[in-house]
């Protein structure tokens, strides 16, 4: 086949797909919802009135306060720079704060959103090599108001600038994972100087360790240039890696009455705040997140789950009877002996989960798009149905066969 043939084949394959007639309406509605979620996430005060799209604002007690038009910051008197910033961000721009930082001058600005009346966009502008550069993303705020926001400034990305917007902002420089697999942080208040806080931070590299929160609720402070810091732009969307809910054979009786509401969250570590980092900025990249739900030999519910964070993953297991609240048990990080890497035919690695559960509950195994087999000592290889399972505790070896590439044999610890 020639290149032309390939083009023809691809065109024929994709030829007749066309978007739904109401795509634009759905996109606009979805876009509005995203804006509302963003605002809600930072303590905003938007409400969605059923069927009415974007609703008028209903202020919460700690919602955005109207901002005066005074330019704050130690460069507020540099009228030429202020003028350039206004020009760079466009007509109607208000400079809320502008100041010196070790990474060069930075300004916090708002300006008309250009998308919908009654809303401004809030963002940052930094000076790089004498040129004004607008941070790539912006936050939608009710017109005439400001919200706390932050950016990582400087050529080495080692300066944190927090525009407080008049709110109390708390800072945590790093997190740790405790013995239960939970995220632990210590927050300290930031002391603003004329509307902002500027402090040196270690170059975060691809993964941002710090966290910022504001208000009594509290709310996560928006970090304007997470995309740029987190390398791959899609990482910074804070979208989770793919999660696969896999139902194991033999679970039907134990899960006859599927839990709902808060009881459902008992069985989902990913729904429990203690295991997440709600005020941190993470690249939610990492291996596929598995949630295997099945039953123990004595008829209890069993869940084995992995959670990804900054390219790594933790593994957990839970077992309890129907209606009982399970204890979340931490197995450890996948790289600590709970997984191995396979290599497919083109040299790309893929993770293989093999986490041995206590109490002779078995070994949780999973590998995306692979066939799995196990054996006990020198016995016959036994195939596993599907790409994930909890195999018997007696299993000593696992074989993983990718669709392309060589099979991998793993001695199970």
């Amino acid at each position, binding site marked *: 086949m020639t290149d032309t043939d390939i083009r023809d084949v691809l065109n024929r394959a994709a030829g007749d797909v066309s978007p739904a007639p109401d795509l634009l309406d759905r996109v*606009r509605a979805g876009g509005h919802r995203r804006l509302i979620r963003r605002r809600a996430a930072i303590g905003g005060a938007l409400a969605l009135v059923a069927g009415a799209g974007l609703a008028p604002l209903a202020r919460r007690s700690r919602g955005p306060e109207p901002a005066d038009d005074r330019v704050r910051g130690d460069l507020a008197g540099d009228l030429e720079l202020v003028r350039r910033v206004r020009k760079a961000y466009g007509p109607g721009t208000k400079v809320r704060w502008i100041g010196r930082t070790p990474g060069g001058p930075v300004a916090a600005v708002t300006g008309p959103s250009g998308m919908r009346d009654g809303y401004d966009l809030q963002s940052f502008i930094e000076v790089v090599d004498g040129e004004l550069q607008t941070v790539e993303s912006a936050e939608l705020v009710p017109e005439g108001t400001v919200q706390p926001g932050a950016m990582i400034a400087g050529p080495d990305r080692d300066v944190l600038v927090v525009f407080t917007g008049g709110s109390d902002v708390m800072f945590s420089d790093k997190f740790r994972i405790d013995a239960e697999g939970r995220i632990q942080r210590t927050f300290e208040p930031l002391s603003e100087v004329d509307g902002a806080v500027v402090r040196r931070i270690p170059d975060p590299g691809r993964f941002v360790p710090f966290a910022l929160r504001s208000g009594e609720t509290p709310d996560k402070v928006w970090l304007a240039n997470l995309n740029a810091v987190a390398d791959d732009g899609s990482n910074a969307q804070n979208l989770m890696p*793919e999660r696969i809910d896999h139902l194991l054979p033999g679970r039907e009786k134990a899960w006859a009455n599927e839990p709902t509401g808060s009881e459902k969250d008992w069985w989902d570590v990913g729904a429990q705040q203690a295991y997440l980092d709600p005020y941190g900025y993470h690249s939610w990249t990492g291996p596929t997140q598995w949630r295997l739900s099945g039953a123990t030999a004595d008829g209890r519910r069993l869940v084995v789950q992995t959670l990804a964070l900054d390219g790594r993953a933790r593994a957990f297991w839970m077992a309890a009877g129907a209606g009982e609240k399970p204890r979340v048990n931490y197995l450890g990080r996948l790289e600590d002996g709970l997984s191995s890497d396979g290599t497919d035919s083109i040299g790309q690695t893929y993770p293989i989960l093999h986490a041995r559960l206590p109490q002779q509950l078995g070994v949780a195994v999973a590998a995306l798009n692979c066939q799995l087999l196990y054996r006990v000592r020198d016995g016959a290889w036994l195939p596993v149905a599907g790409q994930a399972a909890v195999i018997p505790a007696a299993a000593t070896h696992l074989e993983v066969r990718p669709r392309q590439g060589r099979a991998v044999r793993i001695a199970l610890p």
Partner: protein
Amino acid sequence: MGFDDFVRSRSTGLLRVAYLLTGDRHAAEDLLQEVLEQMYVRWRRIHGAPEAYARRALVNRATNRWRSRARRPETPLDAHHEQPGPDHGEDVAVRSAVLGALRELPAKQRAAVVLRYLDDLPVHEVAAALGCSEGTVKSNASRGLDRLRQVLGPSSIPEGVEL
């Protein structure tokens, strides 16, 4: 170009790309809608080069197998084949063969092939969309094409289908 005009004029082309990246019409529609929603929120910042942004976002999301509606029940790939619609039988066969062949490609190769040969993009624009070097694009596209040629060779195409 305003956002509405962009959606009206480019959504078909972007959907075709999404379709070949995902191999599933519904997944492609979801993917495109998510990307366009994201663009709507950021339009002020990206309106200078919206199509490049859209391509990159489509590829990133498809490649990384991420979904904003992340929790989905497991669906074996084999069960995800596009079901024949009201097409002619020949087109259905071609589509099935092509989607199957693309599905077998690693995600980066698939994206390189689709952008280079469906969207007819020059190498540098594909590199921008994939966030990699032009050399990597050429190598991924070449490997992908080799694989497609193997899979889509005459013996694997149903009789009566001309490629």
